[in-house]
């Protein structure tokens, strides 16, 4: 595999981890978030600070990064209890801008220059880059997918689905909507923080612009394209939106236009996403899958 392919692949896998996290918030708990890049950024900055200033390794810093990501997700998830739908969307956009501005203007976070010199990840004495780093990311993606799969299987998912569709009816069933919304935010943002940490160690240099609002829109587009609330949707969506821009590189100026069109078309014709419950692709795949099981 050429190093170009490996680079694209690595970025796609890292983004897929973040989009899986977004899926927990948007797909499972039904809370729209247009500020997911903020949590991706919080993970990246935490990892970068801990490795450059505190001298921790990726592995020792990782639990901290995930915990901090989850904790800030918890704090910023609190508004979701009070505001809903379009107001929540606007609130999360605001969060994204605030987080980005803090990174850009607070000198402690490197200001406009960003943070450079982030060390590579060392695994059993070997510095990971290229193919080995891609493998590491794939392992993490696999773990994240396992967590998502587990979430759809356990009690919490039934509660989350219930809260997503009928909040007050859920509360009359003994389900606290507060707890499950916050749980989804914490799990989702922890996943984004993990992705951010991988991103920081891969790029070795980060800057506030890497986590701006358009990145959030990108994440949401990937999720909507792939299918909200499905297991593989985030991966498929990220893969398609990660590969397409490379194929159509000459059209780079029209990327946002293309994203917009794609989102509109998806919402009009396949609102459940490519892998959603009633999507064309699922209809094609269903007989094959069923045969596989039998």
């Amino acid at each position: 595999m050429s190093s170009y392919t490996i680079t694209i692949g690595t970025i796609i896998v890292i983004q897929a981890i973040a989009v899986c996290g977004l899926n927990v918030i948007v797909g499972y708990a039904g809370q729209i978030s247009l500020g997911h890049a903020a949590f991706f950024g919080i993970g990246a900055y935490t990892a970068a600070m801990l490795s450059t200033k505190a001298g921790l390794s990726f592995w020792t810093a990782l639990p901290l990064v995930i915990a901090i990501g989850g904790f800030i997700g918890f704090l910023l998830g609190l508004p979701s209890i009070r505001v809903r739908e379009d107001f929540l969307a606007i609130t999360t956009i605001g969060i994204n801008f605030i987080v980005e501005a803090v990174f850009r203007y607070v000198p402690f976070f490197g200001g406009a220059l960003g943070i450079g010199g982030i060390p590579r990840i060392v695994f059993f004495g070997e510095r990971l880059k290229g193919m080995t780093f891609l493998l590491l990311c794939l392992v993490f993606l696999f773990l994240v997918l396992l967590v998502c799969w587990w979430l759809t299987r356990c009690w919490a998912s039934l509660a989350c689905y219930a809260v997503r569709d009928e909040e007050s009816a859920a509360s009359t069933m003994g389900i606290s909507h507060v707890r499950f919304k916050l749980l989804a935010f914490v799990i989702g943002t922890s996943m984004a923080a993990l992705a951010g940490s991988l991103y920081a160690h891969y790029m070795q240099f980060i800057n506030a612009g890497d986590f701006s609002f358009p990145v959030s829109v990108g994440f949401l587009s990937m999720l909507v394209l792939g299918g909200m609330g499905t297991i593989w949707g985030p991966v498929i969506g990220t893969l398609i939106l990660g590969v397409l821009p490379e194929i159509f590189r000459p059209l780079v100026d029209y990327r946002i236009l293309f994203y917009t069109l794609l989102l509109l078309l998806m919402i009009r014709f396949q609102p459940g996403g490519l892998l959603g419950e009633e999507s064309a692709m699922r209809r094609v795949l269903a007989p094959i899958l069923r045969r596989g099981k039998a």
Partner: protein
Amino acid sequence: MLLEVKDIHVAYGDIEAVCGVSFSLEKDELVSIIGANGAGKTSILNSIMGIFPPRKGSIIFKGRDITAMPAHQRARIGIRIVPERSRLFPRLTVYENLLTGVYGLRKKIPVDKRISWLYGMFPILKERRGQLANTLSGGEQQQLSIARALISDPELLLVDEVSMGLMPKLVEQVFGILKQLNEEHGLTILLVEQNAFASLNISTRGYVLETGTCALSGSAAELMDNPRVQEVYLGH
């Protein structure tokens, strides 16, 4: 006394929907609240369930003041509601909808036994158990909504306009089931209805609500004989 509602006021902004209603329920009773549109019936049920808190007054369940308790905790101590228009979880199957009813219960419940009991009472739900709730007909949805509330073995069942949108034969069937639950299983039921005749017919007592205040109260037989009730609600 299982439930005591003392002088509750419910208001939406400046508009008072319920202005000082008091009533009570003994264990094993089936009590109806009847009244026209906008009389405040649903508001009363929602404040008992905790979905919309009353502005004034208190609600006492089994001797405990629950006025400030959030809805999900009330569900755990044995209050369940069959809400207006069913309010199912549309993208869960019939079976999963039933399961949500057991959520968060402290006491142990033989879930499989309860479910087969409910399937016995509502055979159509067994037939449709794998179907998504939003593919059910109105009547089936109401039955599922009742079953979902019953699975937790509640002590107090609140039923909000269960007859709405059902064909007369189904209304009869659903009311029959409620009566049976009350008589054979000792379930305490508070029924809110526009269909005064059908609900008073199965009730022990009733209250008549008019624009947010309690206009009349008495045994079901007394209310059915009351000339005013006959004129306004029974169409005699």
